[in-house]
């Protein structure tokens, strides 16, 4: 694994913003002075510190519901990282000092660093506080009286939502990562691809209805992406799958050798495939079915 980027060794520190311009998004560079650059370095270091405090690292899973602060990672080779990778690898960004003249268009801000060996780091933050300050009225003490601050003020946050390095993407705030990475659109667009990749592993399941359901329901599309990412559909036993569906209340019928999922049970069926629905029997003859909001394989991440 490549070594962590040394923020103090960065010979280039750039600041930039993402602009939402109707149907297009643009990323431009905004010149800054040394104090802003120092603040950006501090923000990257604070992000790393926050991630360490958020617990042991885990792989990002699009099907999971995360808390506001996590310590997640996603390889750059993942399809889910495609948009972020474009931001990270974009070159010769246009310099637009006036990009902040209409801050309502700013949906994120970022820093890009580069060291003498050519290693790069990008760190990105969704612009919430950054824009929020513009809406609120700030006051400051002038002599001994409070007065309204008339100047345009842009508040940088304490840390970034996620960091991109050669080793991959490190995510502190999954919500910010998903927003900037345009993940919902990407996951919905990938429904066909994800469903088709499962067809080879599950030839005994009619995936057509699941596919059309997932195109309309982002949560189902996320489960589908998660199932594909986990790569745990190989060698699934048809009889055992059917039995688990029955025990967890997932309504499936078998037609011409294929399991068909009823409309109201698609999410639950995806939950079964994604190991989110399960049954335990600690009390004799009293099996209990549960749905897991989050899960991790024992022995891998705890």
């Amino acid at each position, binding site marked *: 694994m490549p070594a962590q980027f040394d*923020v*103090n*060794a*960065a*010979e*280039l*520190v*750039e600041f930039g913003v993402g602009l939402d*311009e109707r149907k*297009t998004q*643009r*990323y431009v*560079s905004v*010149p*800054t*002075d*040394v104090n802003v*650059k*120092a603040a950006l*370095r*501090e923000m990257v*270091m*604070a992000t790393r*510190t926050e991630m360490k405090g958020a617990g042991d690292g885990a792989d990002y899973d699009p099907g999971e519901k995360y808390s506001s602060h996590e310590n997640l990672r996603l390889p750059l080779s993942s399809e889910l990282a495609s948009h972020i990778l*474009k*931001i990270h*690898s*974009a*070159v*010769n*960004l*246009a*310099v*637009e*000092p*006036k990009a902040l003249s209409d801050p309502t268009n700013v949906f994120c801000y970022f820093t890009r660093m*580069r060291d003498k060996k*050519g290693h790069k780091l990008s760190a990105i933050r969704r612009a919430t506080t950054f824009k929020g300050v513009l809406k609120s009225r700030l006051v400051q003490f002038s002599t001994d009286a409070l007065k309204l601050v008339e100047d345009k003020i842009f508040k940088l946050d304490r840390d970034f939502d996620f960091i991109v390095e050669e080793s991959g993407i490190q995510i502190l705030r999954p919500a910010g990562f998903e927003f900037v990475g345009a993940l919902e659109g990407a996951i919905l667009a990938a429904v066909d691809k994800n469903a088709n990749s499962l067809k080879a592993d599950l030839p005994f399941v009619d995936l057509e209805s699941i596919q059309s359901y997932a195109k309309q329901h982002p949560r189902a599309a996320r489960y589908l992406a998660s199932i594909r990412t986990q790569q745990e559909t190989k060698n699934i036993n048809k009889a055992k799958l059917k039995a688990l569906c029955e025990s967890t209340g997932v309504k499936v019928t078998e037609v011409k050798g294929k399991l068909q999922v009823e409309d109201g049970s698609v999410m639950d069926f995806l939950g079964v495939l994604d190991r989110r629905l399960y049954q335990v029997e600690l009390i004799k003859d009293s099996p209990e079915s549960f749905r897991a909001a989050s899960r991790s394989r024992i022995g891998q991440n705890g």
Partner: protein
Amino acid sequence: MPHPARTEGLKIARLLMVLSSVSPLFVLWAIRGSSLVPDSYLLTFCLLLVILPNFFLWLRIEGAKKHQVKSELIVGSAEDHRDHLLVYLFAMLVPLYPIDAGTWRDLAALIAAFGFVIFLFWHLNLHYMNIIFAIRGYRVFTILPPKDDNPLSGRTSLVLVTPRTNVLPGDRIIAYRLSDTVFFEAKECQPNLTLTPLN
């Protein structure tokens, strides 16, 4: 993805850089003199227009160095525009052409010609042409962006003032920003700022 049209910023700064660019013209005027304007006024005027814009250019470069206002330029292809020298020489000589006439109308024509040159240099972003750069051994290259599939990459051609004798495709150059499209690669850089990691 088509990028919306945008205007070059730093209008006043670019105007001063243009004045710095044409400062040799004021040296020539001061040497030639004028039968209409007393030497004391003309020399003072020319001296100010040589010193002030070049002082501003120096401030601009030093300011960029002090605040580390740098960008990384990735070279798709580079063009060495030595032929721009002809444009530069022509621009310097045209306002001098009628200087011998010595009437107020000729002086007005000279000022108008000078105004046209200034406007064209400013409007066409030719503020990078500067004899001082040439004297100090710098060259000017137009950097065209690499042809990649990334829709977020910049597509604007940039001007690089550099001590390098050649710039090759694929080169990664960190240069100071003089304006939105003109960058200056210094012969030496300042050390980096170092911070203590947070606990």
